[in-house]
Protein backbone atom coordinates (compact mmCIF):
# COMPACT_ATOMS: atom_id res chain seq x y z
CA UNK A 1 0.00 0.00 0.00
CA UNK A 2 2.98 2.20 0.66
CA UNK A 3 3.85 2.01 -3.03
CA UNK A 4 0.39 3.22 -4.00
CA UNK A 5 0.71 6.19 -1.66
CA UNK A 6 4.06 7.08 -3.14
CA UNK A 7 2.65 6.79 -6.63
CA UNK A 8 -0.26 9.02 -5.68
CA UNK A 9 2.09 11.56 -4.15
CA UNK A 10 4.12 11.55 -7.37
CA UNK A 11 0.97 12.02 -9.44
CA UNK A 12 -0.23 15.10 -7.53
CA UNK A 13 3.17 16.75 -7.00
CA UNK A 14 3.34 19.90 -9.19
CA UNK A 15 6.98 19.15 -9.96
CA UNK A 16 5.98 15.91 -11.68
CA UNK A 17 3.84 17.83 -14.15
CA UNK A 18 6.33 20.37 -15.49
CA UNK A 19 9.56 20.20 -17.45
CA UNK A 20 10.81 18.23 -20.44
CA UNK A 21 9.76 14.86 -19.01
CA UNK A 22 6.84 16.20 -17.00
CA UNK A 23 3.41 14.63 -17.13
CA UNK A 24 1.92 17.54 -19.13
CA UNK A 25 4.55 17.13 -21.83
CA UNK A 26 4.35 13.31 -21.92
CA UNK A 27 0.57 13.32 -21.94
CA UNK A 28 0.39 15.73 -24.89
CA UNK A 29 3.04 13.72 -26.74
CA UNK A 30 1.00 10.60 -26.18
CA UNK A 31 -2.23 12.22 -27.36
CA UNK A 32 -0.75 13.95 -30.41
CA UNK A 33 1.03 10.76 -31.43
CA UNK A 34 -2.24 8.80 -31.06
CA UNK A 35 -4.26 11.32 -33.05
CA UNK A 36 -1.68 11.46 -35.87
CA UNK A 37 -1.37 7.69 -36.10
CA UNK A 38 -5.13 7.07 -36.04
CA UNK A 39 -5.61 9.93 -38.52
CA UNK A 40 -3.13 8.53 -41.03
CA UNK A 41 -4.42 4.98 -40.59
CA UNK A 42 -8.01 6.14 -41.06
CA UNK A 43 -7.11 8.11 -44.21
CA UNK A 44 -5.70 4.94 -45.72
CA UNK A 45 -7.96 2.22 -44.32
CA UNK A 46 -11.45 3.75 -44.25
CA UNK A 47 -11.77 4.43 -48.01
CA UNK A 48 -10.38 0.98 -48.80
CA UNK A 49 -12.85 -0.64 -46.39
CA UNK A 50 -15.78 1.32 -47.82
CA UNK A 51 -14.86 0.38 -51.40
CA UNK A 52 -14.47 -3.29 -50.49
CA UNK A 53 -17.80 -3.23 -48.66
CA UNK A 54 -19.49 -1.53 -51.60
CA UNK A 55 -18.09 -3.69 -54.38
CA UNK A 56 -17.76 -6.89 -52.31
CA UNK A 57 -14.45 -7.45 -54.04
CA UNK A 58 -11.39 -8.17 -51.93
CA UNK A 59 -13.19 -9.40 -48.83
CA UNK A 60 -10.41 -11.91 -48.19
CA UNK A 61 -8.05 -8.93 -47.83
CA UNK A 62 -10.07 -7.77 -44.84
CA UNK A 63 -9.97 -11.06 -42.97
CA UNK A 64 -6.31 -11.62 -43.89
CA UNK A 65 -5.36 -8.14 -42.63
CA UNK A 66 -7.24 -8.49 -39.34
CA UNK A 67 -5.85 -11.97 -38.79
CA UNK A 68 -2.30 -10.85 -39.51
CA UNK A 69 -2.58 -7.80 -37.26
CA UNK A 70 -3.83 -10.01 -34.46
CA UNK A 71 -1.02 -12.55 -34.82
CA UNK A 72 1.76 -9.98 -35.34
CA UNK A 73 3.43 -9.11 -32.03
CA UNK A 74 3.52 -5.32 -31.70
CA UNK A 75 6.79 -5.36 -29.84
CA UNK A 76 8.41 -7.41 -32.60
CA UNK A 77 7.38 -4.97 -35.29
CA UNK A 78 8.45 -2.00 -33.14
CA UNK A 79 11.89 -3.38 -32.44
CA UNK A 80 12.45 -4.53 -36.01
CA UNK A 81 11.53 -1.13 -37.43
CA UNK A 82 13.50 0.52 -34.62
CA UNK A 83 16.63 -1.37 -35.66
CA UNK A 84 16.07 -0.45 -39.30
CA UNK A 85 15.03 3.19 -38.94
CA UNK A 86 16.72 4.28 -35.73
CA UNK A 87 15.21 5.43 -32.46
CA UNK A 88 13.11 8.36 -33.71
CA UNK A 89 9.34 8.59 -33.96
CA UNK A 90 9.12 7.30 -37.53
CA UNK A 91 9.62 3.63 -36.68
CA UNK A 92 6.88 3.42 -34.01
CA UNK A 93 4.56 5.57 -36.12
CA UNK A 94 4.83 3.16 -39.05
CA UNK A 95 4.42 0.13 -36.81
CA UNK A 96 1.30 1.54 -35.17
CA UNK A 97 -0.25 2.65 -38.46
CA UNK A 98 0.22 -0.86 -39.80
CA UNK A 99 -1.35 -2.41 -36.71
CA UNK A 100 -4.24 0.07 -36.36
CA UNK A 101 -5.38 -0.05 -39.98
CA UNK A 102 -7.04 -3.48 -39.92
CA UNK A 103 -9.56 -2.51 -37.18
CA UNK A 104 -10.54 0.55 -39.22
CA UNK A 105 -10.65 -1.46 -42.43
CA UNK A 106 -12.80 -4.14 -40.83
CA UNK A 107 -15.17 -1.60 -39.26
CA UNK A 108 -15.71 0.25 -42.54
CA UNK A 109 -16.09 -2.97 -44.49
CA UNK A 110 -18.50 -4.54 -42.01
CA UNK A 111 -20.53 -1.34 -41.80
CA UNK A 112 -21.03 -0.92 -45.54
CA UNK A 113 -21.43 -4.63 -46.11
CA UNK A 114 -24.18 -4.83 -43.48
CA UNK A 115 -26.41 -2.37 -45.33
CA UNK A 116 -29.42 -4.21 -46.71
CA UNK A 117 -28.78 -5.10 -50.37
CA UNK A 118 -32.39 -4.29 -51.20
CA UNK A 119 -31.98 -0.75 -49.93
CA UNK A 120 -28.91 -0.29 -52.13
CA UNK A 121 -30.72 -1.90 -55.06
CA UNK A 122 -33.65 0.46 -54.60
CA UNK A 123 -31.29 3.47 -54.58
CA UNK A 124 -29.65 2.22 -57.76
CA UNK A 125 -33.05 1.62 -59.36
CA UNK A 126 -34.02 5.23 -58.59
CA UNK A 127 -31.05 6.33 -60.67
CA UNK A 128 -28.42 7.19 -58.03
CA UNK A 129 -24.80 7.02 -59.13
CA UNK A 130 -22.47 4.66 -57.23
CA UNK A 131 -20.69 7.52 -55.38
CA UNK A 132 -24.09 8.94 -54.46
CA UNK A 133 -25.18 5.56 -53.12
CA UNK A 134 -22.06 5.36 -50.98
CA UNK A 135 -22.43 8.92 -49.74
CA UNK A 136 -26.14 9.12 -49.05
CA UNK A 137 -27.13 5.51 -48.32
CA UNK A 138 -24.25 3.31 -47.25
CA UNK A 139 -22.12 5.70 -45.19
CA UNK A 140 -24.94 6.96 -42.94
CA UNK A 141 -26.14 3.42 -42.31
CA UNK A 142 -22.60 2.17 -41.76
CA UNK A 143 -21.70 4.96 -39.32
CA UNK A 144 -22.15 2.98 -36.09
CA UNK A 145 -19.81 0.19 -37.19
CA UNK A 146 -17.27 2.63 -38.64
CA UNK A 147 -17.30 4.46 -35.31
CA UNK A 148 -16.82 1.11 -33.57
CA UNK A 149 -13.74 0.46 -35.68
CA UNK A 150 -12.41 3.92 -34.88
CA UNK A 151 -12.95 3.25 -31.18
CA UNK A 152 -11.01 -0.01 -31.13
CA UNK A 153 -8.24 1.42 -33.31
CA UNK A 154 -7.85 4.42 -30.99
CA UNK A 155 -7.71 2.26 -27.88
CA UNK A 156 -5.21 -0.01 -29.55
CA UNK A 157 -2.97 2.91 -30.49
CA UNK A 158 -3.16 4.47 -27.03
CA UNK A 159 -2.02 1.12 -25.65
CA UNK A 160 0.72 0.45 -28.17
CA UNK A 161 1.96 4.04 -28.04
CA UNK A 162 2.99 3.12 -24.50
CA UNK A 163 5.11 0.34 -25.89
CA UNK A 164 6.54 2.73 -28.49
CA UNK A 165 8.46 4.39 -25.64
CA UNK A 166 10.63 1.29 -25.63
CA UNK A 167 12.31 2.37 -28.86
CA UNK A 168 11.84 6.14 -28.74
CA UNK A 169 11.75 8.92 -26.19
CA UNK A 170 8.08 9.73 -26.28
CA UNK A 171 4.79 9.47 -24.46
CA UNK A 172 3.61 8.21 -21.09
CA UNK A 173 5.31 4.86 -21.61
CA UNK A 174 8.61 6.56 -20.73
CA UNK A 175 7.59 6.53 -17.05
CA UNK A 176 7.27 2.77 -17.17
CA UNK A 177 10.60 2.12 -18.87
CA UNK A 178 12.47 4.78 -16.90
CA UNK A 179 10.81 3.52 -13.72
CA UNK A 180 11.79 -0.07 -14.44
CA UNK A 181 15.35 0.83 -15.23
CA UNK A 182 15.90 3.20 -12.29
CA UNK A 183 13.68 1.31 -9.84
CA UNK A 184 11.58 4.46 -9.46
CA UNK A 185 8.45 2.68 -8.31
CA UNK A 186 6.36 5.79 -7.70
CA UNK A 187 6.92 6.89 -11.26
CA UNK A 188 6.42 3.36 -12.59
CA UNK A 189 3.08 2.83 -10.84
CA UNK A 190 1.87 6.41 -11.21
CA UNK A 191 2.66 6.38 -14.93
CA UNK A 192 0.86 3.08 -15.37
CA UNK A 193 -2.22 4.42 -13.60
CA UNK A 194 -2.16 7.51 -15.82
CA UNK A 195 -2.15 5.40 -18.99
CA UNK A 196 -5.03 3.28 -17.74
CA UNK A 197 -6.98 6.43 -16.85
CA UNK A 198 -6.32 7.94 -20.27
CA UNK A 199 -7.49 4.79 -22.07
CA UNK A 200 -10.66 4.55 -19.99
CA UNK A 201 -11.37 8.25 -20.51
CA UNK A 202 -11.06 7.93 -24.29
CA UNK A 203 -13.19 4.78 -24.24
CA UNK A 204 -15.82 6.65 -22.23
CA UNK A 205 -15.83 9.54 -24.71
CA UNK A 206 -16.31 7.12 -27.59
CA UNK A 207 -19.10 5.35 -25.73
CA UNK A 208 -20.81 8.71 -25.27
CA UNK A 209 -20.39 9.69 -28.92
CA UNK A 210 -21.75 6.32 -30.02
CA UNK A 211 -24.73 6.65 -27.75
CA UNK A 212 -25.55 10.11 -29.12
CA UNK A 213 -25.23 9.07 -32.77
CA UNK A 214 -27.27 5.94 -32.18
CA UNK A 215 -30.08 8.07 -30.84
CA UNK A 216 -30.70 9.25 -34.38
CA UNK A 217 -34.47 9.83 -34.64
CA UNK A 218 -34.54 8.34 -38.15
CA UNK A 219 -33.42 5.01 -36.84
CA UNK A 220 -36.29 2.71 -36.02
CA UNK A 221 -36.46 1.28 -32.53
CA UNK A 222 -35.61 -2.39 -32.27
CA UNK A 223 -38.73 -4.35 -31.41
CA UNK A 224 -38.52 -7.76 -29.87
CA UNK A 225 -40.97 -10.38 -30.96
CA UNK A 226 -43.24 -11.86 -28.40
CA UNK A 227 -42.55 -15.49 -28.01
CA UNK A 228 -45.92 -16.79 -26.95
CA UNK A 229 -48.64 -17.00 -29.57
Amino acid sequence: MDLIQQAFAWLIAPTSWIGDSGIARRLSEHLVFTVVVVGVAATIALPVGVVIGHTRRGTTLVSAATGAARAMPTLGLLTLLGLGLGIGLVAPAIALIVLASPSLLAGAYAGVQSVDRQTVDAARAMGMSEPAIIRTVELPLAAPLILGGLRSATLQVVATATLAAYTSNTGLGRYIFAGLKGREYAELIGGSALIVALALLLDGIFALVQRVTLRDPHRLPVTTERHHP
Partner: protein
Amino acid sequence: MRWLSQNWETLLQLTASHLALVLPSVVLSFLIAVPIGWAAQRRRWARDPALTLVGILYAIPSLPLFVLIPVMFGLGLRSAANAIIVLTVYGTAIMVRSAADAFASVPEDARLSAAAIGHSSWQRLWMVELPLAIPVMVAGLRVLVVSTISMVTVASVIGIQNLGTLFTDGFQRGIVAEVVAGLVVTVLLALVLDGGCILMARLLTPWTVSQRRVRGASAWT
Protein backbone atom coordinates in the same frame (compact mmCIF):
# COMPACT_ATOMS: atom_id res chain seq x y z
CA MET B 1 20.15 -18.25 -40.50
CA ARG B 2 23.49 -18.29 -38.72
CA TRP B 3 21.91 -16.76 -35.66
CA LEU B 4 19.32 -19.51 -35.73
CA SER B 5 21.85 -22.34 -36.02
CA GLN B 6 23.77 -20.99 -33.04
CA ASN B 7 20.77 -20.27 -30.87
CA TRP B 8 18.17 -22.91 -31.56
CA GLU B 9 18.37 -24.18 -28.01
CA THR B 10 17.49 -20.76 -26.65
CA LEU B 11 14.70 -20.56 -29.17
CA LEU B 12 13.23 -23.88 -28.04
CA GLN B 13 13.53 -22.90 -24.41
CA LEU B 14 11.80 -19.55 -25.01
CA THR B 15 9.06 -21.26 -27.04
CA ALA B 16 8.46 -23.58 -24.09
CA SER B 17 8.27 -20.64 -21.65
CA HIS B 18 5.98 -18.88 -24.09
CA LEU B 19 3.58 -21.82 -24.15
CA ALA B 20 3.82 -22.21 -20.38
CA LEU B 21 2.35 -18.70 -20.10
CA VAL B 22 -0.11 -18.92 -23.00
CA LEU B 23 -1.77 -22.25 -22.32
CA PRO B 24 -2.83 -21.70 -18.69
CA SER B 25 -4.08 -18.22 -19.59
CA VAL B 26 -6.16 -19.52 -22.47
CA VAL B 27 -7.65 -22.33 -20.39
CA LEU B 28 -8.42 -20.01 -17.47
CA SER B 29 -9.95 -17.33 -19.71
CA PHE B 30 -12.12 -19.92 -21.39
CA LEU B 31 -13.33 -21.43 -18.13
CA ILE B 32 -14.11 -18.02 -16.64
CA ALA B 33 -15.66 -16.53 -19.76
CA VAL B 34 -18.05 -19.30 -20.80
CA PRO B 35 -20.29 -19.16 -17.71
CA ILE B 36 -20.27 -15.34 -17.80
CA GLY B 37 -21.11 -15.39 -21.51
CA TRP B 38 -23.91 -17.85 -20.86
CA ALA B 39 -25.35 -15.65 -18.11
CA ALA B 40 -25.02 -12.54 -20.27
CA GLN B 41 -27.06 -14.27 -22.95
CA ARG B 42 -29.67 -16.06 -20.86
CA ARG B 43 -30.14 -13.83 -17.83
CA ARG B 44 -31.38 -10.38 -18.65
CA TRP B 45 -30.03 -8.80 -15.45
CA ALA B 46 -26.50 -10.06 -16.13
CA ARG B 47 -26.21 -8.79 -19.68
CA ASP B 48 -25.36 -5.10 -19.25
CA PRO B 49 -23.04 -5.41 -16.23
CA ALA B 50 -21.13 -8.29 -17.84
CA LEU B 51 -20.67 -6.64 -21.22
CA THR B 52 -19.78 -3.27 -19.72
CA LEU B 53 -17.17 -4.82 -17.45
CA VAL B 54 -15.72 -6.75 -20.34
CA GLY B 55 -15.55 -3.58 -22.44
CA ILE B 56 -13.68 -1.73 -19.69
CA LEU B 57 -11.20 -4.56 -19.14
CA TYR B 58 -10.53 -4.71 -22.84
CA ALA B 59 -9.89 -0.96 -23.01
CA ILE B 60 -7.05 -1.09 -20.46
CA PRO B 61 -3.60 -1.19 -22.10
CA SER B 62 -1.60 -4.29 -21.25
CA LEU B 63 1.79 -2.82 -20.33
CA PRO B 64 0.57 -0.74 -17.38
CA LEU B 65 -1.46 -3.71 -16.23
CA PHE B 66 1.73 -5.79 -16.06
CA VAL B 67 2.93 -3.17 -13.57
CA LEU B 68 -0.29 -2.64 -11.61
CA ILE B 69 -1.42 -6.25 -11.13
CA PRO B 70 1.62 -7.24 -9.02
CA VAL B 71 1.11 -4.15 -6.85
CA MET B 72 -2.56 -5.03 -6.30
CA PHE B 73 -2.01 -8.74 -5.68
CA GLY B 74 1.37 -8.52 -3.98
CA LEU B 75 3.07 -10.62 -6.64
CA GLY B 76 6.59 -10.45 -8.02
CA LEU B 77 6.82 -8.18 -11.06
CA ARG B 78 8.63 -10.84 -13.06
CA SER B 79 6.60 -13.82 -11.84
CA ALA B 80 4.78 -16.10 -14.25
CA ALA B 81 1.63 -15.62 -12.15
CA ASN B 82 1.66 -11.92 -13.02
CA ALA B 83 1.77 -12.63 -16.76
CA ILE B 84 -0.92 -15.30 -16.48
CA ILE B 85 -3.27 -13.01 -14.55
CA VAL B 86 -2.88 -10.17 -17.05
CA LEU B 87 -3.34 -12.45 -20.04
CA THR B 88 -6.37 -14.05 -18.38
CA VAL B 89 -7.96 -10.64 -17.86
CA TYR B 90 -7.68 -9.88 -21.57
CA GLY B 91 -8.54 -13.39 -22.62
CA THR B 92 -11.71 -13.27 -20.53
CA ALA B 93 -12.61 -9.91 -22.04
CA ILE B 94 -12.26 -11.36 -25.54
CA MET B 95 -14.00 -14.63 -24.78
CA VAL B 96 -17.07 -13.42 -22.85
CA ARG B 97 -18.49 -11.71 -25.92
CA SER B 98 -17.82 -14.73 -28.11
CA ALA B 99 -19.39 -17.06 -25.57
CA ALA B 100 -22.48 -14.85 -25.36
CA ASP B 101 -22.71 -14.82 -29.17
CA ALA B 102 -22.21 -18.58 -29.22
CA PHE B 103 -25.13 -19.22 -26.88
CA ALA B 104 -27.20 -16.73 -28.87
CA SER B 105 -26.49 -18.79 -31.99
CA VAL B 106 -28.19 -21.88 -30.55
CA PRO B 107 -31.48 -22.18 -32.48
CA GLU B 108 -34.50 -21.39 -30.32
CA ASP B 109 -36.27 -24.39 -31.89
CA ALA B 110 -33.63 -26.75 -30.58
CA ARG B 111 -33.85 -25.32 -27.06
CA LEU B 112 -37.62 -25.55 -27.09
CA SER B 113 -37.70 -29.04 -28.48
CA ALA B 114 -35.08 -30.23 -25.99
CA ALA B 115 -37.26 -28.99 -23.13
CA ALA B 116 -40.40 -30.40 -24.68
CA ILE B 117 -39.05 -33.93 -24.88
CA GLY B 118 -37.93 -33.87 -21.26
CA HIS B 119 -34.39 -32.58 -20.84
CA SER B 120 -33.91 -31.02 -17.42
CA SER B 121 -32.34 -27.55 -17.56
CA TRP B 122 -28.89 -29.01 -16.78
CA GLN B 123 -29.26 -31.68 -19.41
CA ARG B 124 -30.37 -29.09 -21.89
CA LEU B 125 -27.30 -26.97 -21.14
CA TRP B 126 -24.80 -29.83 -21.37
CA MET B 127 -26.37 -31.96 -24.07
CA VAL B 128 -27.93 -29.38 -26.35
CA GLU B 129 -26.83 -25.78 -25.81
CA LEU B 130 -23.10 -26.37 -25.30
CA PRO B 131 -22.60 -28.65 -28.30
CA LEU B 132 -24.61 -26.35 -30.55
CA ALA B 133 -22.61 -23.35 -29.32
CA ILE B 134 -19.28 -24.95 -30.29
CA PRO B 135 -18.88 -23.50 -33.79
CA VAL B 136 -19.20 -19.86 -32.69
CA MET B 137 -17.35 -20.62 -29.46
CA VAL B 138 -14.36 -21.96 -31.39
CA ALA B 139 -14.31 -18.86 -33.59
CA GLY B 140 -13.85 -16.89 -30.35
CA LEU B 141 -11.30 -19.36 -29.03
CA ARG B 142 -9.20 -18.87 -32.16
CA VAL B 143 -9.13 -15.10 -31.61
CA LEU B 144 -8.29 -15.73 -27.96
CA VAL B 145 -5.39 -18.07 -28.74
CA VAL B 146 -3.84 -15.92 -31.46
CA SER B 147 -4.15 -12.69 -29.45
CA THR B 148 -2.70 -14.27 -26.32
CA ILE B 149 0.30 -15.66 -28.18
CA SER B 150 1.00 -12.22 -29.57
CA MET B 151 0.26 -10.27 -26.41
CA VAL B 152 2.46 -12.29 -24.08
CA THR B 153 5.52 -10.88 -25.89
CA VAL B 154 4.82 -7.54 -24.20
CA ALA B 155 5.70 -9.15 -20.87
CA SER B 156 9.30 -9.47 -22.01
CA VAL B 157 9.92 -5.73 -21.49
CA ILE B 158 9.40 -6.14 -17.77
CA GLY B 159 11.68 -9.16 -17.78
CA ILE B 160 9.33 -12.15 -18.07
CA GLN B 161 10.98 -14.72 -20.36
CA ASN B 162 9.17 -15.75 -23.55
CA LEU B 163 9.61 -15.39 -27.30
CA GLY B 164 9.32 -11.61 -26.82
CA THR B 165 12.71 -11.78 -25.11
CA LEU B 166 14.12 -12.19 -28.62
CA PHE B 167 12.76 -8.73 -29.46
CA THR B 168 14.17 -6.96 -26.42
CA ASP B 169 17.50 -8.79 -26.57
CA GLY B 170 17.78 -8.38 -30.35
CA PHE B 171 16.94 -4.70 -30.12
CA GLN B 172 19.41 -3.96 -27.34
CA ARG B 173 22.23 -5.87 -29.02
CA GLY B 174 21.31 -4.76 -32.53
CA ILE B 175 20.78 -8.28 -33.91
CA VAL B 176 18.15 -8.05 -36.65
CA ALA B 177 18.14 -11.82 -37.20
CA GLU B 178 17.11 -12.39 -33.60
CA VAL B 179 14.12 -10.05 -33.87
CA VAL B 180 13.10 -11.60 -37.19
CA ALA B 181 13.40 -15.09 -35.72
CA GLY B 182 11.16 -14.00 -32.84
CA LEU B 183 8.54 -12.61 -35.20
CA VAL B 184 8.56 -15.68 -37.42
CA VAL B 185 8.36 -18.17 -34.58
CA THR B 186 5.60 -16.24 -32.76
CA VAL B 187 3.48 -16.03 -35.89
CA LEU B 188 4.15 -19.69 -36.73
CA LEU B 189 3.14 -20.71 -33.23
CA ALA B 190 -0.11 -18.76 -33.65
CA LEU B 191 -0.79 -20.43 -36.99
CA VAL B 192 -0.15 -23.90 -35.60
CA LEU B 193 -2.40 -23.48 -32.55
CA ASP B 194 -5.05 -21.79 -34.69
CA GLY B 195 -4.97 -24.80 -37.01
CA GLY B 196 -5.33 -27.02 -33.95
CA CYS B 197 -8.48 -25.13 -32.96
CA ILE B 198 -9.96 -25.59 -36.46
CA LEU B 199 -9.16 -29.29 -36.38
CA MET B 200 -10.68 -29.68 -32.93
CA ALA B 201 -13.86 -27.92 -34.06
CA ARG B 202 -14.16 -30.25 -37.07
CA LEU B 203 -13.85 -33.29 -34.82
CA LEU B 204 -16.29 -31.98 -32.22
CA THR B 205 -18.99 -30.87 -34.66
CA PRO B 206 -19.46 -33.58 -37.31
CA TRP B 207 -22.96 -32.26 -38.08
CA THR B 208 -21.64 -28.98 -39.46
CA VAL B 209 -19.53 -30.88 -41.98
CA SER B 210 -22.65 -32.70 -43.15
CA GLN B 211 -24.52 -29.41 -43.42
CA ARG B 212 -21.76 -28.06 -45.62
CA ARG B 213 -22.04 -31.14 -47.81
CA VAL B 214 -25.81 -30.82 -48.03
CA ARG B 215 -25.58 -27.15 -48.87
CA GLY B 216 -23.10 -27.97 -51.61
CA ALA B 217 -25.37 -30.70 -52.91
CA SER B 218 -28.46 -28.51 -52.94
CA ALA B 219 -27.08 -26.70 -55.98
CA TRP B 220 -27.79 -29.87 -57.95
CA THR B 221 -31.38 -30.50 -56.90
